[in-house]
């Protein structure tokens, strides 16, 4: 069921605005709607003053900075509730001023080192090529070596440069060249240090690119530089590791505080952003929203106490238009709560309409059990589910696993009814069915009949709920449609009863009349098209009941696959091979047994059951409250 909500309007003095926002946020029970979406209250939208906007901007900037630091540190969410210091904003600003430059310097250094490490193999390749052609003079003190790289297309430039260097130095230079790769040729010029300026000027004039190595590698001959490259290739990863260690130390020291500040800032930003939904007059502000009926009195008295009665909190009349916009809170007993996720998967129920969660909690595991119906698979599946439940603490996944666990229990029960454990394996150990065995062809008809009866009961229940909904919402169309279906279906049961000799022949005529009446009502709900569509819809309704045959079909498929696994195992000469093959097929069957019945049970609810009464499209209740400060 969904709980009663009250539409409210709160009007207060602008001087009390922040006090009231603070109180509402602490109460955490009021959903604040946009005033512009509420035509029943007229006021101009609240204009935020410059100081609020400036403050909001500051908070966002600070939050972004903290976000950046959290990303750099790779902080993980912290479990538990935080104790937030009162002057956290000043503390955060002061510490960030100190921490940010330090972290930036470390990350810049790490980036630079990573870039250098990535480029070193390229230098290494070039230097290795130059090494064999390096003249002995390169090692002599007082000589300078310059490497030059030229595209092989312009290889003529190298010859010209070489000659001019020789002329410039009076033949005291040595020039050697070699191909680096398919497109590049390198030249090494060795010359006395006093000609450095002239040679560099010449290279500049000729627009020849020098092989420029990072400063850390020095400016010596290629063999010394290559040794330097190797040293750097070993030392850089260590330096990066050292930086990472320092950052990890900072992360350990600061992560918790940063997360606290970030959450508090976001909370503050969120609190201020809600102001855009408010309205105002010259001296007052107005907000509209929803509060659960049970919390109205508490909320009202809290606001009156905090403002000294300078606030007006009033209930708005719940008009049909307002009712359509009412937020929905589902409230179900604990065992049914996991099924709320499955209902929401389709759509939240509309406010004031039937919440089918409890009915789903009753029928869905039961349907699952009918299909699974195996003690062995049931116990295995239950074990897996219980194990997963210890790992998964919350979320939709936990709900699905809980539902699966409930279904497994029903599966074990039906396993005793059908006398199945890993298909036909139980029979070999003397397991006998309480009612009937699905593997026996003479009982297939019983199984199908059982599922059809279950389907008929489920659909009839859906139609009764549909008629109740139609009466409650005074919808003539829905009443005719669902009422017609209900009358027609019940009459059809009577016809079947007469045909199978469970009822006397005297019931036949009124039952046929009932079916015709039902089709007429059904057709009448569809207007002129009803003449044609009425009978088609009624046939569709019979199809809905027949659809429950899947409870038998899926179960039979599962039990025959298990039988195949057991029979195949016997065909192999080796016991070990047979057991391995059987285990693999049983494992496949177990996966199918977990997946298929869940999907088909869901489908029976969504398509066959819900469509008889369910009104979806509800709006989720989102109260204005402190953000979740548990860190997850």
């Amino acid at each position, binding site marked *: 069921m969904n709980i009663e909500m009250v539409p409210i309007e709160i009007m207060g003095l602008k001087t009390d605005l922040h006090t009231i926002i603070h109180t509402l946020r602490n109460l955490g029970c009021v959903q604040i709607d946009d005033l512009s979406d509420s035509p029943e209250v007229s006021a101009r939208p609240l204009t935020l003053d410059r100081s609020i906007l400036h403050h909001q901007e500051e908070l966002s900037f600070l939050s972004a900075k903290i976000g950046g630091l959290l990303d750099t540190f790779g902080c993980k969410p912290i479990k538990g509730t935080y104790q937030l210091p009162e002057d956290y904003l000043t503390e955060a600003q002061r510490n960030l001023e100190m921490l940010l430059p330090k972290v930036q310097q470390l990350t810049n250094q790490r980036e630079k080192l990573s870039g250098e490490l990535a480029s070193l193999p390229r230098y290494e390749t070039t230097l290795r090529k130059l090494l064999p052609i390096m003249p002995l003079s390169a090692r002599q003190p007082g000589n300078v070596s310059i490497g030059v790289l030229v595209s092989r297309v312009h290889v003529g430039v190298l010859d010209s440069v070489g000659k001019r260097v020789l002329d410039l130095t009076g033949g005291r230079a040595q020039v050697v060249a070699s191909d680096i790769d398919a497109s590049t040729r390198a030249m090494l010029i060795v010359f006395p240090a006093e000609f450095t300026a002239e040679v560099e000027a010449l290279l500049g004039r000729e627009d020849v690119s020098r092989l420029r190595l990072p400063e850390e590698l020095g400016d010596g001959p290629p063999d010394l530089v290559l040794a330097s490259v190797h040293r750097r290739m070993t030392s850089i990863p260590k330096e990066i590791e050292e930086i990472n260690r320092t950052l990890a130390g900072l992360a350990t020291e600061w992560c918790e505080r940063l997360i606290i500040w970030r959450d508090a800032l976001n909370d503050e930003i969120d609190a201020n952003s809600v102001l855009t939904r408010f309205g105002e007059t010259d001296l007052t502000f107005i907000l509209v929203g929803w509060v659960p009926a049970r919390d109205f009195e508490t909320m009202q008295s809290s606001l009156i106490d905090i403002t000294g009665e300078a606030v007006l909190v009033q209930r708005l009349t719940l008009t049909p238009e307002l009712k359509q916009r009412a937020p929905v809170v589902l409230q179900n007993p604990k065992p049914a709560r996991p099924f709320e996720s499955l209902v929401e998967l389709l759509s939240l129920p509309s406010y004031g309409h039937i919440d089918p969660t409890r009915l789903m909690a009753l029928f869905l595991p039961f349907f699952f059990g009918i299909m699974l119906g195996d003690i062995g698979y049931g116990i295995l599946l239950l074990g897996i589910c219980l194990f997963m439940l210890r790992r998964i603490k919350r979320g939709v996944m936990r709900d699905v696993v809980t539902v699966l666990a409930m279904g497994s229990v029903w599966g074990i029960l039906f396993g005793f009814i059908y006398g199945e454990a890993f298909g036909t394996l139980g029979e070999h150990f003397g397991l006998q069915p309480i009612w009937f065995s699905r593997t026996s062809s003479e009982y297939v008809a019983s199984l199908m009949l059982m599922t059809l009866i279950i389907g008929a009961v489920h659909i009839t229940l859906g139609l009764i709920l549909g008629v109740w909904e139609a009466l409650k919402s005074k919808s003539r169309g829905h009443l005719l449609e669902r009422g017609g279906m209900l009358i027609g279906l019940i009459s059809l049961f009577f016809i079947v009863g007469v045909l199978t000799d469970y009822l006397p022949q005297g019931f036949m005529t009124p039952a046929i009349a009932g079916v015709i009446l039902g089709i007429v009502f059904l057709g009448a709900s569809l207007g002129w098209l009803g003449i044609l569509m009425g009978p088609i819809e009624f046939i569709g309704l019979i*199809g809905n009941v027949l*659809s429950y*045959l899947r409870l038998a079909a899926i179960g039979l498929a599962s039990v025959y696959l298990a039988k195949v696994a057991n029979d195949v195992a016997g065909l192999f000469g080796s016991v070990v091979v047979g057991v391995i093959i059987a285990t693999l097929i049983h494992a496949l069957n177990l996966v199918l047994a977990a997946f298929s019945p869940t999907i088909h049970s869901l489908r029976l609810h969504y398509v066959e059951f819900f469509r008889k009464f369910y009104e979806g499209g509800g709006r989720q209740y989102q109260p204005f409250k402190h953000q979740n400060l548990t860190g997850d």
Partner: protein
Amino acid sequence: MEAGLAAIGAGLAIGLAAIGTGLAQARIGSAGAGVIAEKPEALGTIILLVAIPETMVILGFAVAAMVLLLGG
């Protein structure tokens, strides 16, 4: 002979229905996957749409079972 023909008939009833369901689900499924990529909250509706053609194969199963149990 009659039992054999009944078995073939049952096979055709469920097999052809399964092909029909498969074709329908293939089209709905591919379109549905596109919708979920754009709008993950539509998952429930897509499951519902994909599941609708399955009724065909269930009816095929019902016919096959009747052929085998009553006619075979």
